[in-house]
């Protein structure tokens, strides 16, 4: 479920980047690469787990499923937080710089 949540987040952010931010002004391309990186790493983890558990891998208990989904959502939110910090630090549209200048004046 964590893998699935990360892949979904990666697909959604890639679509947003392609449609709205192809110049990567708002760093959505960076966010999508972060999610793709995590998805690939969790995919590797899933393959190794599948080798160990075989078909049992596809039969998780409802409690495990829910916990993994909750973890996936939290990981996606954590990724969004990292992206937000990056955008605020880089200030690609100069909004923060402008706001600071307004306060100073």
């Amino acid at each position: 479920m964590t893998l699935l949540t990360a892949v979904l987040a990666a697909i959604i952010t890639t679509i947003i980047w392609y449609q709205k931010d192809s110049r990567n002004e708002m760093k959505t391309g960076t966010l999508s690469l972060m999610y793709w990186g995590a998805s690939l790493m969790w995919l590797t983890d899933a393959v190794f787990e599948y080798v160990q558990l075989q078909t049992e891998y596809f039969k998780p208990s409802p409690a495990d499923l829910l916990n993994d989904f909750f973890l996936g959502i939290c990981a996606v939110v954590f990724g969004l937080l990292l992206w937000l910090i990056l955008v605020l630090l880089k200030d690609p549209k100069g909004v923060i710089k402008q706001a600071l200048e307004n306060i100073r004046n």
Partner: protein
Amino acid sequence: MACFLVPAGEAVATTIITKIVKSKEEKERSASDSINAAIDTQIKIPFSHKLKWLNNMLWGGSALLAFEHIWHGEVVPWFPFLTAAENPIARSEMLQEMSTVGVAMALLVSAVWVGITTASNLIEKRPQQAVKVKAHRGRNQ
């Protein structure tokens, strides 16, 4: 256990390589003819920029996996930071996981980046070919 440390280590190495490549590209750009350099940067994506794609995947992936490890209590905020490093049996298991799962993660991300870079190289060649064909046609007419 600590599989994310392998791609994180790769991320450190690729970030250093990116800085070196970027400074080399800037030196070359300032040394070469400014008009040609401007045309080149419009047509070609600098290699340092492509390396940034790999950095973003490795750093982002490692960060989210580190979050997962904190969630599972495998990473803690006190020394030695990894619960598996506290006893020898768990430590050897951790090292084995790093050498199998961790290395596989780093290799897969790198392989996907090679694929993306190859695809972007092919896309970059398209407009150049079109310009060359136009120039050739112009010469023949």
